[in-house]
């Protein structure tokens, strides 16, 4: 398939990134190889969107630091970048809204690009001629080939997929729209469990063609939780997170027993919001 016929994809990863680890970064590489390998897609960008402080997760340190660490981690990446929009919002933002925000951004910049072209390429007399030819359906020959807008897809691990089942964590309409309007790329070791999970959900099953399960053949157990635990115990996290991130953490002494106590006793924002709405 020619490049121009492939669907361009932007991979969006939402999460705490508390801190970002080599595993998070691997998700992007695995997803890109997989999607490009299908022959139907071309991954053009990866976006890391750290969650805002209003998420109120236990042990969540300030978004300011989490964003900087993600930026340090992607300094050497040619295609993965950090987006701060979500982290800068005052209230917690549903994942669906983050997807929508990024898709609309892509559509807006694609629109600008398309508006420019006629002005540049068909001034004056040429435009008139082109319009006449248009009537005869010769449009494709004269206009520059307009690319479809790239599609944003949610990149995640199996834990996010399975979190769809946690009561009140997600709105069911949101789940439907995420898989229906956008799509999911889920990196998982336990492919069978993920498939079973999809099978057992009507909403996910309906949009199963939009849920791409990517097998991670080697266990890569680097979770942010384990990183924070190792740091509290004075254990080395070298080679588990990028060196620049490790140095930043050390310099600012970011993770301690105290930082792990943040938000203890506070209800997680989505649970708070969805329970309140259910009760209203």
């Amino acid at each position, binding site marked *: 398939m020619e490049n121009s016929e492939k669907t361009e994809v932007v991979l969006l990863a939402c999460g705490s990134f508390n801190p970002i680890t*080599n595993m998070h*970064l*691997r998700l992007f*590489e*695995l997803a*890109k*190889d997989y999607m490009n390998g299908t022959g139907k897609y071309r991954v053009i960008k990866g976006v890391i969107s750290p969650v805002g402080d209003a998420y109120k997760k236990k042990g969540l340190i300030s978004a300011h630091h989490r964003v900087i660490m993600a930026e340090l981690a992607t300094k*050497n*990446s040619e295609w993965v970048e950090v987006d701060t929009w979500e982290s800068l919002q005052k209230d917690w933002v549903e994942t669906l809204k983050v997807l929508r925000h990024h898709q609309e951004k892509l559509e807006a910049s694609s629109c600008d690009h398309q508006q420019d072209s006629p002005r540049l390429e068909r001034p004056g007399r040429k435009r008139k001629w082109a319009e006449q030819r248009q009537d005869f359906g010769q449009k494709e020959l004269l206009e520059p080939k307009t690319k479809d807008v790239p599609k944003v897809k949610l990149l995640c691990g199996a834990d996010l997929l399975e979190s769809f089942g946690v009561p009140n964590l997600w709105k069911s309409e949101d789940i439907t729209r995420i898989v229906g309007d956008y799509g999911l790329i889920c990196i998982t070791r336990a492919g069978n469990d993920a498939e079973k999970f999809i099978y057992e959900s009507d909403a996910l099953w309906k949009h199963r063609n939009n849920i791409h399960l990517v097998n991670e*053949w*080697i*266990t*890569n*157990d*680097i*979770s942010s939780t*384990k990183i924070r*635990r*190792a740091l509290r115990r004075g*254990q080395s996290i*070298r080679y*588990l997170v*990028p*060196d620049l991130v490790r140095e930043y953490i050390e310099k600012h002494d970011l993770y301690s027993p105290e930082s792990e106590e943040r938000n203890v006793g506070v209800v997680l924002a989505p649970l708070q919001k969805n329970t309140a709405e259910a009760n209203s």
Partner: protein
Amino acid sequence: MYKVIGGIISPVNDNYRKKDLVAAHHRVAMARLALQTSDWIQVDPWESEQAQWMETVKVLRHHHSELLRSLPQTEGPDHGRAHSLAPTGSALVFPAVPELKLLCGADILKTFQTPNLWKEAHIQEIVEKFGMVCVSRTGHNPKEYISGSAILQRYQHNIHLVREPVQNELSSTYIRRALCQGQSVKYLLPDAVITYIKEHNLYTGDSS
């Protein structure tokens, strides 16, 4: 009980003739690049530069004697011993000769059972004179390997089992296969090593 003062990576000699083994000078160069940011681990090419493959115990002997040679020579009654003051004020005397231990994955313990792969006397010398530090590896039960061997059992106090809290099944075999298939290995290897592999066209699957 212990204070780790250094780490040595000793890439095997080309004459080991393992499948897919690229030239030693590349493997040494890649290890060096990987260790650029480390302040305590080094590569030592001695083993790879020998005329033939050599048994692990000989590599241990070599590095141990190198360690002895590099120690500062002291004169007087306290010759060869170091002193320091404990917090309680009493003197601590400890031997100044560092111990050299073989660091490996738990799978190596299993290879001791493979007929003709190791000499019995060497296994004994490794666990008796030097000692081992074995890091856990998925699918391996090091305690089982130890209890299944009389020598290992006798010197089990000298075989330190390290449990890896972050399970990581990364292996060179996996990396080579991924590279062969044109897949990304970014974040699994240091960037400098990936660049080196690309520049020298290693692990493309054309040669083995």
